[in-house]
């Protein structure tokens, strides 16, 4: 694809995009319209006021074209972005969000399989985004850039290589729980949903929780506490955790610590681990179920990444007849369905994590070391995972998870007033301005300035 006319400002012809085979030019009106969308998006992302506002200069050059996009695409066309990117490429980084446009260009290049060009743009980005400092937007851009880099080079930096990394991660979780209500909201709301489902029937005291994202097991501490208090003659808790293959160390830690904690709480406790790979093959047959137990299944969007047939998964879930299925979405998946577009999911994830970083800024003073730890060891791996997911576009063309659950015959269970009160209480304790709790469609949602960060819901067949 050739440029119709070269831009006078464009000193770097290597950056002209050649990756489209269509000669599809948008009219100027469409340009303007799409720039407005971009405007509002950027405003939402709260770009620094100091940044030089970019100008749409359609008259200076004709924009190159990208592959055609869905007309229903909310986001602006690539032409816009390339245009702005051209403008700012030669100039010194003025703190504007031109790097975001470049990020999206990399995404587009990857999507259209032009890896060489992607590398080029990325290397330039590496020049401009060298540190993970600055405003949330900039930090998010840095992490996403790193994630894209990993994607391109095929390295996986998320593994915990050493004990030092593991300690850092545990510390990050601990600190994060201390400054932001996000992790505690996820855990406690889920726990309350579990407890509510148990209290409704006074039948079996045996509880079996199937957890697909156990982490370091922090959620079970408070659950065990509650079980211990509620039952007269010592409670009983059994956990089956489905874990990834490279989690040997964490697994051992979890087992040791949970077992010890349960002993202190005087609860009879068992924990088993099942490899994710095994689960992918055998589904719920890989898990041991015992008659007479009440089964609770904890899921999150992560499961939909690993499992190939989601409908099948939900069906198998039904066969297990769980008491309750608790879905905790702390990745912002609630709104977007699998759109099948890397770019769309990338932008969506970018917005989401920018919000999370903003909320982190509100919770901790600037430059605080705690924030750095949380970002590096907690958020960054999540961002990498999100980018990888978006690139894989596994969920292409599928329904939202909510639709999938409903289609399989599940119905949402109303969360109790206790859960509501607890969430409000938590926010009061956290004392971070900007968070609030909302209910929507049977979910309890933790919002940051109106944007959902964590959504918890309970389901049953």
């Amino acid at each position: 694809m050739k440029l119709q006319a070269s831009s006078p400002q464009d000193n770097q012809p290597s950056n002209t995009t050649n990756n489209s085979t269509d000669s599809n030019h948008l009219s100027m009106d469409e340009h303007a319209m799409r720039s407005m969308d971009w405007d509002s998006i950027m405003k939402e992302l709260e770009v620094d006021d100091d940044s030089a506002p970019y100008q749409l200069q359609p008259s200076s050059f004709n924009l190159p074209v990208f592959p055609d996009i869905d007309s229903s695409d909310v986001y602006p066309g690539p032409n816009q972005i390339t245009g702005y990117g051209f403008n700012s490429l030669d100039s010194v980084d003025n703190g504007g969000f031109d790097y975001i446009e470049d990020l999206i260009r990399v995404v587009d290049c990857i999507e259209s399989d032009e890896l060489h060009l992607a590398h080029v743009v990325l290397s330039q980005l590496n020049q401009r985004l060298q540190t993970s400092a600055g405003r949330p937007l900039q930090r998010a851009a840095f992490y996403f850039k790193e994630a894209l880099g990993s994607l391109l080079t095929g390295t996986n930096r998320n593994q915990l290589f050493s004990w030092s990394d593991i300690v850092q991660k545990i510390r990050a979780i601990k600190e994060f729980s201390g400054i932001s209500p996000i992790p505690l909201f996820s855990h406690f709301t889920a726990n309350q949903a579990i407890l509510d489902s148990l209290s409704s029937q006074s039948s079996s005291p045996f509880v079996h929780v199937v957890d697909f994202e156990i982490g370091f097991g922090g959620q079970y501490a408070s659950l065990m506490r509650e079980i211990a208090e509620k039952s007269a003659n010592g409670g009983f808790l059994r956990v089956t955790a489905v874990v990834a293959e490279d989690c040997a160390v964490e697994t051992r830690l979890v087992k040791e610590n949970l077992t010890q904690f349960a002993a202190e709480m005087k609860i009879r406790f068992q924990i088993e681990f099942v490899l994710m790979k095994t689960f992918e093959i055998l589904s719920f047959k890989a898990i041991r179920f015992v008659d007479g137990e009440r089964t609770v299944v904890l899921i999150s969007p992560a499961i939909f990444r690993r499992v190939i047939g989601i409908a099948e998964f939900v069906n198998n879930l039904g066969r297990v007849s769980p008491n309750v299925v608790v879905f905790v979405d702390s990745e912002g998946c609630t709104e977007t369905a699998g759109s099948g577009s890397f770019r769309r999911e990338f932008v969506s994830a970018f917005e989401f994590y920018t919000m999370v970083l903003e909320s982190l800024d509100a919770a901790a003073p600037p430059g605080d070391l705690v924030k750095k730890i949380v970002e590096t060891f907690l958020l960054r791996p999540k961002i990498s995972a999100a980018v990888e997911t978006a690139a894989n576009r596994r969920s292409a063309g599928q329904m939202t998870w909510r639709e999938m659950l409903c289609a399989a015959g599940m119905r949402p269970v109303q969360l109790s007033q206790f859960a509501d009160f607890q969430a409000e209480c938590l926010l009061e304790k956290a004392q971070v301005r900007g968070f609030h709790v909302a209910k929507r469609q049977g979910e309890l949602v933790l919002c940051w300035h109106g944007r959902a960060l964590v959504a918890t819901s309970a389901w049953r067949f």
Partner: protein
Amino acid sequence: MYSAIRSSLPLDGSMGEYSDGTNLPVDACLVLTTDPKPRLRWTSELHERFVDAVTQLGGPDKATPKTIMRTMGVKGLTLYHLKSHLQKFRQGRQLCKESTENSKDVSCAAESQDTGSSSTSSLRLAAQEQNEYVYVSSSYQVTEALRAQMEVQRRLHEQLEVQRRLQLRIEAQGKYLQSVLEKACKAIEDQAVAFAGLEAAREELSELAIKVSNGSQVPFHTTKMTVPSLSELAVAIEHKNNCSAESSLTSIPVSATLMKRHRGVFRNGESVVVGHETGWVMPSSSLG
């Protein structure tokens, strides 16, 4: 929010305030107090008559003290009495309305009856410091007030319970994470100790080897395990990017970095450089 109902409502319908003396019925209808400045006691009966009269006259906004006096036909009731009572009545209604609008918790039974009702409007005034009158017109309102108050108390109780439980849960989680952290740190130290021992042994060996050899440029030095594996390189780069986080964490023992560098040694015992590692495997780990 709860101000309309907050203070204690007399449950038996009697007046909330008692003067020095007792109630002395002055005449058939009016009850006056016996303190130095005799004041009219608005008994429930009297109040009901008042309310009826007001209703007849089209509501508290339409009725005037004069017309009420005429309608009620109670001897000894002065305009002055009625003026103040009517004012309080109007205020009380306002209070009740406001409190119901603002609060979702408190159900003001009077409100539900007041809105557009013509039959039995009633008044409930909370006894504030300045306000000496508490009106409870009928037992129905008493029940309603009770129920509302119970509801309020129940919610307060539940919220307190939630707070208490939440505190326990937060503590449990914090305690758990702390112990996980400690165990992990301890594991580092244990390993570091093991490494240190191993490293010391290796150093001795290599020194010995140097002595044994003829002092030429024996490449034995290169066996000092300084060549990191690919994965360690990646880690090092990553840590370089995050060096500010790393360097300030003083609680991580220095031996941890020692361990990291010489991980290759630990894995293979003898050989120097290990191949690319795909994951962390503990020598004695076992799943489950």
